[in-house]
């Protein structure tokens, strides 16, 4: 990885950080829990890293790294799938009220 590329990745990191701060400015309190669980699902993005790390591991010897990678994928998937479904369920209940209203 070239120095320039690394530095740009850090740049991306910094700017994404500011963006994250701006995105969550005024959230009504009843959305705090869904928001927490929704962003929690996003942190399961590590699944992408898990898949590529596992692929690299599979090309080398050593069962341990394969298993580690496999476990990483499983755990990240639980986080992703579970996270999105729970969030949706929670929000669905809010939604229902909204629809009752109309």
């Amino acid at each position, binding site marked *: 990885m070239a120095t320039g*590329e690394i530095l740009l*990745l*850090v740049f*991306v*990191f910094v700017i*994404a*950080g500011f*963006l*994250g701060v701006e*995105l*969550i*400015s005024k959230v009504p*309190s*009843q*959305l*705090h*829990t869904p*928001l*927490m*669980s*929704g962003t*929690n*699902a*996003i*942190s*399961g*993005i*590590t699944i*992408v*890293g898990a898949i*590529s*790390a*596992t*692929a*690299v*591991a*599979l*090309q080398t010897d050593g069962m341990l*790294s394969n298993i580690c*990678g*496999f476990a*990483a994928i*499983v*755990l*990240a*998937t*639980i986080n*992703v*799938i*579970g*996270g*999105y479904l*729970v969030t949706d369920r929670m*929000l669905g*209940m*809010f939604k229902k*009220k*909204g629809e*009752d*209203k109309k």
Partner: protein
Amino acid sequence: MNFENIRTVCTTVLYMVSSVLFIRGIKLLGKADTARKGNLMSSVGMLIAVVTVLFEKDVTKTVTKNGPINNAYVWGVAAIALGSIIGAIWAKKVEMTGMPQLVALFNGFGGLSSLLVALTQYMTAENINTFSAIALGLTVAIGAIAFTGSVVAWGKLSGKMFKKNVTIPAKNAINGLLAVVGLVGVAIYALSIAGAVDASVGTIGIIIVTAAYLILGFTMVVAIGGGDMPVIISLLNAFSGLAAAFAGLSISNSVLVVSGCLVGTSGLILTLIMCKAMNRTLYALLFSSFGATKKGAAGEQKEPKSMSVEDAYLILEAASSVVFIPGYGMAVAQAQHAVKELCDKLEANGAEVNFAIHPVAGRMPGHMNVLLAEANVPYEQLKTADEMNPQMSNTDVAIVIGANDVVNPSAINDESSPLYGMPIINAFEARTVFVLKRGKGTGFSGVENPLFTNDNTVMIYGDAKNTVAQLVSEFEE
């Protein structure tokens, strides 16, 4: 442009698309009427990212290089299928009141996954330079703390483990030491990659950081009270986002960096917002061991008046405006459906009924909203403190159901109270205040509540669900 170049362009563009979907998704999640759409959008982003990685060179290469079994697709699909099933079942089965602990658990898995990604990368030891070594070490650290911290939080919230607040002597010193030791481990590992020390020393570095931060997650969270867990979960959520971002830096993957960092900082802001709503500082929450000194407020105490359900019914029947103020006790008693029934009865009886929802009533943000939504209380009956307080003095009866701290008037008029400064619901201004609780238990903060001994307050002792159900049957008779 050769094939590899085209591949790089395509994958980067797809990662960009998925980053944009995450950005829009988080934005929409923050608004009540678009939240569900936002969640959907971010899940589409996730799908795109996962599909994209399947076309990365490292992954496709395993097909030709390894046999039919040992290729990344077989392993990947198996792992994803397994994870999906577990995740989906848990998500379907959980009760609404079990949400916070489930979120905590999922979050722990995310952290552990980042930790394992870093360890896998460490073991295969490919593409590592000094910079990615530092990122890898930090991924281990943050992933580990997010993992054990979340597991402890889950244990506390579900009441399964670590329920009692362990007081660790010299907690801050120990935690500080663990943090520093772990970072030394990271430095050792980075030095070994830079070639300054031997590779086997580097291994020790990795072991040190893993162990130190696994322990740190435990010691940090185990000493914090169960009621503060939502804030801690939000903080740990930010951590697991950051872990993903550092993993991204270490394997040089842009979508991990962007979305991890988004989760990291938005989680941090959310944490601060929550702290503010509870009149806490994040610093105090993490570093001071309160809770111990708080309880002994007291002074001479009046005895609160109490009343039977029958008498309370007579007052309620005559009331033309009623406000429910639910709190943690309603969640414990699972009384929300009974409350909805009572609400219907009162409305049938001609009274105007509202719910005054305090932002930190219960044990997670929006706890009351979720429960009452489950019981089909319409949205427009749920009022905020700001909306209800001005009307409180025109209210005939305020029914406090298992709430305590959020209606404690000493937050307004007693500067020495630990609650002082927290916005509350001014239940004490109502003409009559019913307080439904089981006994003399204090609230989460452990502070005495002068409301209970006010002249216009009557206690109705008993489990909230029973009491409310009895009131409902009085109306039915």
